[in-house]
């Protein structure tokens, strides 16, 4: 019988330990409750209400495809194109002419449509052979298609089939880019498209430098070109954190006020900042960068198509630097459209945007309350 007792004894020890642990957890929760989730939720709801009072939109009403509203005329053109009518698109690009910022943006939006279905573009190309506008949309659409085939996942979650299609399509796009560039030798837009080919096919740095010379000779302070090239120089693509920041600082320093290139150092910082707290965002350098970007935004043409993108970044960093009132100013200017950095890398862009924005609204209200009292 002794053996039986021994066995029971051995079995009893873990049971006893478990019961003691349960009791301890119970007592701890009784005297020192963990923060109530309900209270947090209530606070969030309050902030959301306050935001709504200011005329800011809830997450489900945020546009997640754009960084800012499109000019009314452009929205009409895109709708026409989706219906198969290419003439308005041709007219739009013709009327934009040599405004390279707008041309590259319009070409991108049209190309996005053509990457889905390109029957209208084929019709355009059939009627107007060697139209440089159609050619630039064609080149951009194939590059966009290639990136769609790849998908947005990191390399390890991307299948061989996806990479195959990606590389095949990009390789084909090179010819189209060259054709578009040849048809309109002054236009920097085909070179902007080629940067994304460079990213995908992994151009060596020297080749990228050559491409960059071609591009800046045509448009020295082009926002989309700089944004794209900065991606190339990021550590996740073909450069490093140092190369990216150096590129961004150089571009920002050499650009006239109002060109919005002060966004680049902020983006370079954002792309390589893995820290958990906000210390890295509050260095004197970062404070100065935000200050420069604020001045840049104030000096920019209010209809600059990329201005809202800078404002999204500013709102984010002003908040991280505890300048919530200034952040709220920026949020009010861009609210309703969230397809911009820093939100657009998240799956739930609108949710992320609204959480940060509502925090800002809450903070501002909390600061105002004692003053009013």
């Amino acid at each position, binding site marked *: 019988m002794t053996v039986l007792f021994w066995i029971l004894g051995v079995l009893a020890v873990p049971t006893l330990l478990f019961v003691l642990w349960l009791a301890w957890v119970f007592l701890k929760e009784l005297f020192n409750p963990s923060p109530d989730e309900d209270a947090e939720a209530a606070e969030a709801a309050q902030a959301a209400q306050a935001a709504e009072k200011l005329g800011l939109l809830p997450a489900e009403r945020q546009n997640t495809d754009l960084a800012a509203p499109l000019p009314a005329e452009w929205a009409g053109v895109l709708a026409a194109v989706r219906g198969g009518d290419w003439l308005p698109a041709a007219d739009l690009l013709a009327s934009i002419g040599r405004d390279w910022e707008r041309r590259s943006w319009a070409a991108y939006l049209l190309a996005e449509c053509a990457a889905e*279905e390109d029957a209208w573009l084929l019709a355009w190309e059939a009627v107007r052979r060697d139209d440089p506008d159609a050619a630039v949309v064609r080149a951009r659409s194939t590059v966009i298609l290639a990136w769609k085939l790849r998908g947005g996942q990191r390399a390890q979650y991307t299948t061989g*089939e996806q990479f195959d299609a990606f590389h095949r399509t990009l390789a084909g796009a090179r010819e189209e880019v060259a054709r578009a560039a040849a048809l309109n030798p002054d236009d920097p837009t085909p070179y902007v498209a080629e940067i994304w080919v460079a990213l995908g096919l992994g151009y060596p740095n020297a080749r990228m430098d050559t491409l960059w010379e071609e591009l800046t000779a045509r448009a020295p302070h082009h926002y989309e070109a700089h944004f794209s090239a900065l991606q190339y120089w990021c550590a996740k693509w073909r450069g490093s954190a140092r190369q990216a920041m150096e590129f961004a600082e150089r571009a920002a320093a050499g650009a006239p006020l109002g060109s919005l290139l002060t966004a680049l150092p902020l983006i370079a910082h954002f792309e390589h900042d893995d820290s958990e707290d906000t210390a890295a965002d509050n260095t004197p350098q970062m404070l100065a960068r935000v200050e420069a970007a604020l001045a840049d935004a104030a000096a920019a043409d209010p209809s600059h198509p990329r201005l809202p993108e800078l404002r999204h970044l500013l709102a984010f960093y002003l908040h991280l630097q505890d300048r919530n009132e200034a952040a709220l100013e920026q949020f009010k200017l861009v609210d309703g459209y969230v397809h911009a950095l820093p939100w657009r890398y998240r799956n739930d862009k609108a949710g992320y945007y609204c959480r940060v924005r509502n925090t800002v609204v809450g903070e501002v209200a909390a600061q105002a309350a004692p003053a009013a009292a």
Partner: protein
Amino acid sequence: MGATLRALRALVLLLGFYLLSLVLLAALIGLDVLVFSWGHGPLTAKVGFVTVLLAIPVVRGMLMLRTPKGEDGPGIPVAEADEPRLWALVRDIAAAAGTRAPDRIVLTGEVNAAVSENPRLLGLLPGPRRLYLGVPLLTGLTEAQLRSVLVHEFGHFTGGDTRLSALVVRGRVQIGRVIGQFHEKADDKVAADRARQERKSAERVARGKKAKQVDTTGVGATYRTMARIYTAYGKFYLRASLSTARGQEFAADLTAARIAGRDATASALREIPVLSASHDFYLESYATLGLQARLLPPRGEFFGGFGRLLTARELELADLRSQLPEEPAGPYDSHPPIAERVRRIEALPADGRTDEARGAALALLSEPARTLAALEDAALADELLRYPRAAGWEELLDASMAAGLTTAQTPLHRALAGYTGQPATLPALLDVIDDGRLWRLAEKLPLSEEAAAAKGRAFREFVRPVLRRSLRTMVLAEFSSRSLLHWEFSWSRPASLRLPGWGSETGEGGPEAELEAALEAALADHPDTTRLRALLPPATQNA
């Protein structure tokens, strides 16, 4: 460590195996005694039964004293009268290495040379010795390299490695067998349990209840635990004997360099992995090319073609020789990495024997062609030997490609049959394309998750490669069935396709480029089959 010490260690390690078995048996008996004195009735019976079951493999492992007799692999034994020069070379080398010449020489079909000896009385008395010599090795090595390989093998005997290794090998084999037995029993038990559960499940279904998931996790765990104990000891055993084994290899290499020359030894070491890889490739892509069409290469060519492949791909091989494997073949492989062995040999001072015996080792045979033919009879399965022989490599290629094309079932075949409900034919496919329903058909192809989720241009891009490959196969099969295709055989390149010239219509790239362009047009976003139809033999177009 001297030979005696090594022998002693081998003996201790082997005894450790018996000790482990005895301890396990004692533990089982102890358990029985314990249960017998404290327990009662059914429990005692059950425990007793289980311990006896577990004891059986242990006891059997201990009683299996004899290592299994190595059987002669497939090969042709050659007498001294048949191959006087080979025998003379072998005797010469054995004498130079200071050991006894083999009693038999067996020529095999592998890239390998090995000397085996079945020692008697636990390796205390020498036994009959055999030299296995792969004919592909003779094909790829020069005479000097062959000498080096042979010295290496005989060198193991001079160092006394092999006689003592009988003990090491015995231990290894025995542990392996016991582990195997336990796993086998566990597998049997799992199978039995699965059958029982499935029977039960079937009964449940028969009674109108839901079937239960068959779950055999945990079954046979006792057997597996026993196997794990032996596996742990086996690993320890191997690791303990490994450094010795690797040291012996280096020593044998040094002997080879001393007797056969430094350069011949280094180059032979470089050559063997290259030959081994080339031979695998040769078997897969050339020798067995016709199996699908139930054809063999001409007599003597099954092993004979290897030499021609080596000559034709000399440049590629030179490249391969410079990339040596840095890793050993496996964690318990007794050979050190080849790269390390080559480094050690090449570090020796030059001995000025670079230009010795550069002739092919195969020329040592009195009648290489006869040997190559005879080897086929010995090394190939009877079933293969009954296959008819092609007249030449060219014919073999044509016949096997034609057979492959006629029986090909591409994903497009299946999609088309599923879409039309008719047998999949090329004319039917072209009609579907002309009706503008190619992309509807494409939805029936096996799609990856990403392709299935894609729409419009992206979807078409995803399915285009498989469509292209399949359509190409279907078109080629059409040509092939009309004997319009010809394949160009080459020892140095993959087989290339020769299409019939299409007269004056063919563009600058020749008929191949024309075909590719026609395929592309037929699978474009807005497909156009006109060019493809123009290329096809008339009968297809009327269908």
